[in-house]
Structure formats: C-alpha cells, structure tokens
C-alpha cells in the first residue's frame, strides 16, 4: 500500500470513529489505533504526537466530508 493510501485510511478511520453510533465506538477506536500503531511501528513517535501531526490534515479531510454529505442530502431533498 502506498504511503498516501495509508494516510488516507487513517483519516477515514478517525472520521468513522467520530461519526459512529455510541454502541460502535470501541470497535472504531480500536480500528483507528491499529492503523496509527501500524504507521508508527519502528519509529519512536507516540500515538499522541502522530495525532497532533495529523490534526491539520484531519480538519481538511473532515470539512470536505461534511460538505460532501450536506451536498448529497440537499440533492435528495
């Protein structure tokens, strides 16, 4: 898998965690952590550091997703 695709999967997993129902939170949290741990394996970068490093990219990712969802909903109305 390319590194770009790996990054995209992490952002998608983060988004899925935030958007999941309450009863699915632990499952999505574990999936997100698994991808973070895969990405940082072999480095001395902590999960917290990686989350902070990805924060700006995640903001852009979620903003694009939310706009996409709103646009899709308004087309259905």
């Amino acid at each position, binding site marked *: 898998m390319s590194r770009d695709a790996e990054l995209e999967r992490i952002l998608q997993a983060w988004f899925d965690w935030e958007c999941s129902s309450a009863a699915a939170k632990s499952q999505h949290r574990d999936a997100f952590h698994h991808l973070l741990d895969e990405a940082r394996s072999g480095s001395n970068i902590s999960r917290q550091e990686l989350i902070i490093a990805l*924060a700006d990219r995640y903001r852009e990712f979620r903003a694009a997703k939310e706009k996409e969802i709103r646009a899709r909903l308004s087309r259905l109305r």
Partner: protein
Amino acid sequence: MDMSTSLVPAQWNAVDFMVDFHTRYKRLGLLTETLAWVASFALFRETETQTHYLNQPTSEDRRQHKTLLAALAAEGQRLLRRAHHAGGLPENLDGINTADLEAMVEELRTTQLQWEGDMTPQRREQILKELFDVT
C-alpha cells in the same frame, strides 16, 4: 439565515445546558445519566460540524468548543468511574457498554489533542515526512 451569527450560539447554549444539568443533578441513575451524556456528546459534535467544519469558527465558537469539550470529557470520565465501580453499565436496548463509554471519553481527549495539541511546524513536518513521505 446566517448560521454563524444566530442559530449556532443557541446550539452551544443547548450543549452547555445539557452538560451542566446532568453534572449538577445526579439523580437519574447511572444508565439514564450516561444516555443523556451520549445525547449531549452528539449535539456537541453536530454543533462542532456547523461551526468548525462547515464554517470558519469565530473566537466565541472556539471558546465554547474548548470549554464544553473539557466539561464533556470530565463528565464522561466521572460516569466511566461510576460504571467501573458498579461492575459495568447496565444492559440497555441501545447496546452501549462500558468499553464504548471509555472509547467516547478517549475520542474527546483525541479531539482536545487535535485542536489544542502543541507541536512545532518543524516536528510536524519531520513526522509526516518520516511516516508518510509527505510534508
């Protein structure tokens, strides 16, 4: 209607009311208080979407977001301690268990890191380059 100047402050006030009410009046029992907290959590996320992702947040939005995020996380942590003390959340039709409650509190802590985490641009660039070969 301009959402950024009229409706959104009312939504922040609603989140504030819901978090504050259940923090002050602990008389509904663990499960009901937890489900009410889950509803506050959902309203917080919806308001965050309006203010921080579909619009540019104002300084008041940022202040409310930071304050209510901390209050929600603290209340979630208290509920989690009570759930552990009680041997877990009672079974419920929504299927929410103690692990989910724990994951929600952790999600809020992750959001705090996202918005308030401190890192130099050089360190950020170094991490993204090392792990993903991007800058």
